[in-house]
């Protein structure tokens, strides 16, 4: 008799990897577009970056609802500081993935450019046009994004460390399209 070890649900796995892909897209677009000279391409990329940002925000909101209604699979036994660090990193990432799109939306409003999701749905301007506020929000958006990148790097390194050095199922339970590992018999 073998017992399948618990994995994340299909919904959680889908949301996780979609978010991961969109973060890569969003950061790449963001870093590339800011250096461009004003051109139609630049305006297009800014819009795409904003659409991706709004999508990430919606995905993360959905994930937070998932988290509130599902317990994630338990962590393997290990030092307590690692378990605390893992939880802390997860919650900081959630917080950043909410705050970064929000700061971008506010920045856009402050610069007098509304966000129009997919060119169809115009989001309300939460602040009035105010260039200096826009400059502050731009720095905040950037600082939060670089903080997130550092935490994502930590998150990836930790997952790989579990997978390759500890050889446990921490990464496995979040991988799509794999069969659950079976409980190893002692």
């Amino acid at each position, binding site marked *: 008799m073998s017992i399948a070890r618990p994995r994340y649900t299909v919904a959680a796995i889908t949301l996780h990897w979609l978010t991961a892909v969109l973060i890569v897209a969003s950061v790449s677009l963001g870093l590339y577009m800011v250096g461009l000279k004003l051109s*139609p391409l630049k*305006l*297009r990329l800014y819009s795409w970056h904003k659409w991706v940002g709004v999508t990430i925000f919606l995905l993360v909101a959905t994930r937070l609802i998932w988290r509130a209604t599902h317990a994630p699979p338990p962590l393997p036994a290990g030092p307590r500081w690692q378990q605390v660090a893992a939880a802390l990193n997860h919650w900081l990432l959630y917080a950043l993935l909410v705050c970064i799109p929000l700061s971008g939306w506010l920045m856009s409003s402050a*610069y007098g450019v*509304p966000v129009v999701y997919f060119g169809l749905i115009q989001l309300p301007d939460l602040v009035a046009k105010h260039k200096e506020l826009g400059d502050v929000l731009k720095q905040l958006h950037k600082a939060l994004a670089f903080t997130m990148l550092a935490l994502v790097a930590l998150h990836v390194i930790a997952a790989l460390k579990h997978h390759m050095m500890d050889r446990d199922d921490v990464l496995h339970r979040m991988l799509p399209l794999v069969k659950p590992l079976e409980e190893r018999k002692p």
Partner: protein
Amino acid sequence: MTFARAAVTVCAVLAASLCSATGAHAGRVTAVDIDKSAIAFVSKQMNVPVEGKFRKFSAQLAFDPAQPSQGRVEVEVDLASIDTGSDEANDEVKSKGWFDVKNHPTARFVSSSVKSLGAGRYEVAGKLTIKGRSKDVTAPFTYKSAGTGGMFEGAFALKRLDYGIGEGAWSDTDTVANEVQIKFRFSGTAASPRQ
């Protein structure tokens, strides 16, 4: 040249004194208080409405709500005074492919007719010249009397490519829409404060 200018001045003075001689009745406005006036525009980039304005312009007008068809207006806009909301865009739109302000520093509107649409609403038609290209435009507007003056407010849409505004790569209207909304507000006064 000097003679022509002198003649114009004499005519203007004559016209002004004629006005006061016949007793400008309440409601007729003959000048514009620029500080209380505004010319703004809304362009759409990737379907995102972005508002901008012109900081410098001048306007001459005469309007009497009792005889709207006698109304006339001339507006001259200093295109280099454009404020799009970002320095980068301000520089860009002054360049050759956009307004080409070096060769065409001003845009000009000269009315040809004004008619009443009823209930305080009117319509002005005339020629708008930008970048050396003239097009007929009509703009509905409202007029509200206040004291000895009154406020004109209106809007109309123009197609930027009709005037060659945003050529080359920028002529792609999927990114920057062809249609640009122009909004104006002019504070009319009974007499020019400068005279």
